[in-house]
Every structure is written in C-alpha cells, then in structure tokens.
C-alpha cells in the first residue's frame, strides 16, 4: 500500500487511474496542505516574495556575478522547517521524492546546459551520510555534473556574526563548464551567500551564467 511519506496514512489512488499509469502522490492531502507554495509577486533575482515585482534591496546590494536568478518552490514555514530537518539532519533521504516533480518542472523552465549539486565539506558529508543537494537532483531524475568541491571550514556556529556575513570562499572548481549555463539545486535559499560563492567557483570553471532552484525560501 502507498503511504504518505510524513504521516504514514494511506495515499492509495483509484485503481483505474493506476491502470493508466498514474502514481500515488508522495504526501497525503493533509500533510501537503501544511506546505505553502510561493506564488505572487517576488524579487526578479532571488524569488523573495514582495508586494510588487522588483529587485529586492539584498539583491541590489550584492556585487555583480555570474549568478542570474533563483527560483524557490515553498515558503520556509514551520512545516517546511520540520520537513527539512528530518530530511537533512535526521537523514530521511526518501523525503526528496516530495519535491521531485516540482524540481523537474522548474529545471526544464530554467533551461540550463548543466546541473550541479552544492557540495558539502568531506567531514560534513560523512556525518550526514548523503548530500541533500545531490539527493534532490537524483530523485528528480536529473543528472548532476561534478563541477565543484568544498574545503573543510569551521562550523558556522563557531564563527562570529561578522565572519558569517563575510563568509569566505570554500568552493573550488573540479570540472569543466566552459561556455555553459549551470543550474544549482539546493534545499534552502536564505541570504544567497552560499549560492553566490558556488557561482563564483563555477565562473572559475568557465560557466557563463548560473541559476539556482531551492525547495524553500527563508527570510521575509
């Protein structure tokens, strides 16, 4: 029997629909309704919800880079926070299925030449057992290219606020993206610092433009 990935209730669909190839949804209606899709006007660059379509102050303040746009699927509300905690920190890989269809659609729309995961530092990867970004790409049926790697760095929680805001580059290129557009896929977009640093490293690898898709958009 098919069950909701979060509450284990049945998500069985009518047998005639299954016969025509329909698949049961990953979440039941009750759990799905706790997640809020982002819609309406937003920042043209980072997809932050806004009163009217414009470029938000944060994006205006960022220096120019190869990073073009971000698209985010859901608001980072309590339900999403709990879901991502279970996915990333508890390590429930199967939850990547919830976003597979949405990510596939958004990736088609972004129409980039290559897809690339945001790498984790080796020690962090060993601790978590999988990279959430790779999991999202894999479950969406996309093929990620190994273009980037990440150096060991101190834990964010051990840094002062000033050090965090001015985070230094920890990504470095390990592949060739010469003349290509690259799509990064990750779980959350907050300040955009991580995505922009990854974009810088991709530029070193030869990429001419970088877009991103994230499951959630945090911040107001």
């Amino acid at each position, binding site marked *: 029997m098919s*069950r909701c990935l979060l509450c*284990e209730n049945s998500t069985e669909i009518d047998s005639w629909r299954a016969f025509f190839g329909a698949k049961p949804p990953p979440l039941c209606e009750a759990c799905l309704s706790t997640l809020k899709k982002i819609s309406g006007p937003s920042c043209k660059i980072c997809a932050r919800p806004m009163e009217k379509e414009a470029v938000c102050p944060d994006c205006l303040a960022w220096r120019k880079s190869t990073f073009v746009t971000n698209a985010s699927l859901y608001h980072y509300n309590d339900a999403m926070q709990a879901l991502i905690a*279970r996915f990333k920190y*508890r*390590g*429930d*890989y*199967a939850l990547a299925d919830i976003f597979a269809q949405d990510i596939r659609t958004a990736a088609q729309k972004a129409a980039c030449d290559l897809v690339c995961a945001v790498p984790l530092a080796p020690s962090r*990867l*060993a601790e*978590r*057992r*999988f*990279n959430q970004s790779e*999991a999202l790409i894999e479950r969406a049926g996309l093929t990620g290219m190994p273009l980037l790697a990440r150096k060991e760095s101190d834990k964010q929680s051990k840094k002062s606020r000033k050090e965090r805001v001015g985070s230094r580059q920890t990504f470095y290129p390990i592949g060739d993206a010469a003349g290509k557009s690259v799509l990064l896929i990750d779980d959350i977009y907050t300040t955009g610092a991580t995505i922009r640093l990854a974009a810088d490293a991709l530029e070193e690898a030869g990429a001419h433009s970088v877009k991103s898709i994230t499951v959630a958009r945090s911040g107001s």
Partner: protein
Amino acid sequence: MTNAFFFSGRELTDEEILKPLDLHHFTVRPGLSETPQCQRCGNTTNFSSHPCARCGKICTYCRNCIEMGKISSCTKLYRWNGPEPAHSEKAGRLNWSGTLSAGQHTASENVLRAIQNGSEHTVWAVAGAGKTEVLFKGMAAALSGGKRVCLAAPRADVVRELAPRLSAVFPDTPPPALYGGSPDRHVYSPLIVSTTHQLFRFTEAFDVMIVDEVDAFPYTFDLSLQYAVQKARKKKSALIYLTATPEPSWKEDIKSGKREATLIPARYHRHPLPVPKMSWCGNWKKTIVPDPVQKWVKEKQKALLFYPHIETMEKALSRLKEVDERIESVHAGDPLRKEKVEAMRRGSIPVLLTTTILERGVTFPGVDVAVVGAEDRVFTESALVQIAGRAGRSAACPTGDVVLFHYGKTEAMVRAVEQIKQMNRLGRDRGLLDG
C-alpha cells in the same frame, strides 16, 4: 556520561555512544538485520535507501524510528554487558500511608505475586479506581530485591504526571521521567517512568515492566511500540498491564481466562460511576451549539464539553464566549495546551471545550461532562467510557453529570452505557459500593 552505569540496559547507536570508549564491556550488533528488520524498533516494512557517504555502499535505513537518530545498514548498536549496578538497600522504602480499597487490595496482592513470580498480569480498573496505588507494594518489593522496574505509558503527559507521584512515594529512588526532549535522559536509576517510545533505547533492561493505559493510542495501533516493550524487558521478567477500557480482544481473553487479570469495578471512594444520559440534539453540525447544549452549559459551574473535530469546536467556542467569555477550547496542537489545562484545574475556566485529547489521564475535581455529536466515529466505546470517567472522581465530589448529545444513537454509545452500568452492578455485587 562518566557513569558507566548509564549504559546498563541501554542499547545505543555509534553516534549516541560518546567516543573514545573502552569497548570491553559492550556487545555490538548491526542496527539492521539481513531481512531487514530494524533491531531498535522492530520495523520490517518502512525502509528507504541511498548511496552512503559513510560506508560507500547503497545503505538501507529505517524510516520508522528515524526521529530518534538514524539506523542504517552501516549503523552498529552497542549494549553494555558489564555487571549490573547494585541498588541502595533503601531503594524500595515506601513513603505512603494511604489505605487501599478492597478492590485495590486484591489487585495489589495479585500484582505483587506476578512481580515475584516473573509472570504476566492485567489490572482492569475503572476510571478513578486508583490504579497507581495498586502498584506500590509490588514495586517496593521488586526494588528492595534489587530488581529494576519500569513504568511505561504511551503518552508523555501521563509520564510527566506519574513521575512526581512516584518520587514522593519512593523518596530514595526518585524515577527519571523519560520522554522526547526530557531533561532526565542521562541518568541511571533502578526505577524509571518512560513513554513506550523511549523504550526503543533499552534492551533486556527491566525485571518488572508495567505498561499503563495499555489500550491508549498509539500503543495498540503501533506494533513497534509493543516490540519496544518486549525488547526492553528481560527474558525472565514480570509484565503488568493497566487499563480502564481494555480492547474487545483483551476482554474476551480475560473472560475466557487466557489472560490473567484482576478487575476493579468500583472507585476507591465507593460511589458508583456516573451513568451517561443520552439526549437527542438534532443536527449539531448545522446548529453547532444546539439549544439543549446551550442550556446545559449555562447551568454548569465547571464542565468539559467534548467535540469530535477542531473546526466545529472553534465555531462553538465563539458562540459560547457570548455566554461566558472565560470559556476556552483546547486541542492536541494548541500551543497553550498545558496552560489551559492548568487554568481549568485552578478553576479559572468554567467550561473547557476539548477534542478527545482530554478523554483520559486528567482529573478536574467536581467536573461535569458532555459530548456534542456523540455519534461521531471518534467517540468509540472506550473513548466514551473514559470521557464519562472524568466525572465524579474525587471523594469530595463523587457524583457528576454526564450527557451524550447526539443526532442518532450508535452501537458505541449504547455499549459504553452498558459497560458502565455493568461495572456498577459488579461493584455492588462485590460489596465495593456504599448505598
């Protein structure tokens, strides 16, 4: 965690065990068996897998107990195999001067015997019979004999209520309360009070396992919790079940003698259980607060009003606020749940609207109870018996009004009333009731 005794009886993952560690006194086994079965929660159906950065293979993991930390094919479980800690000689000293009712006394002796023989026994005691007191003598004997005792309950609020009571009764062995996020997690004690959930972290630890509210959700429903109880007790150990409303299959087994049990059909204060009255109230889904309900509420000083669903309850609340603005509502996800229950206890809320979350485990002295939409399927026979059991619990106010407002009687309603009447008959026949 300098105290190695902490590990005694516990079985933990490599991530929970602090390193470096002298592994001399530990037995190690894989977290998942070949089948696969999760060795911590017993799950055999809910798994997923992924390429694992830790072991380099495609690793299967258990999705059932992942909130307690991940168990994968490459996870190992560590179990202490060193000597068991010796208990203080005073561990079983009982600081309790109450007396048991005749019904309680019989049950208490049977529990004691089961504990001494390492056998199984069920105490079927009506709401307000005084189940916990029935355990004291047996627990004291076990603790004095150097045995390790666990009192488990499916719900955390019951655990939080039981722990301080037992601390008062066993002052030399105050039990830690184990539930998700509890501050007492890292201590060893010969006596613990735990959610059935937290028992996942124990293996063959207890000589006496007591499961309270054994018919409560989610215990009956979740096979892995039943697995946890079995795993946490020693192979040779006593198993005591407490319930006010046993499942139908349990009732049959008790009747046929397959399940050894003591029935306490009467309350400790020797007054009969209030019998629910049924009152037809028309289509309450339309009227939300039907006239007879409104009238009932106006007459009450202290009452619980049960609704089957949050939505109708919230609509009813806004109407009843016009009757008295101190009236409140509560449900499982209510952030002010603890505070509202506390305010109800203090008497600053006259009428509390509630879903079935307050059906059991709570006592408000002198409270009257009504159910709106008693025919709804959330109100099972046992739910209705438990709800009726909220009324008349204290010796000072031993009677109470219980009304089932309905839009068509159900089998569950009729059987609940019959069950309560039958208990009163039994109580009378056995001389456990006055008057």
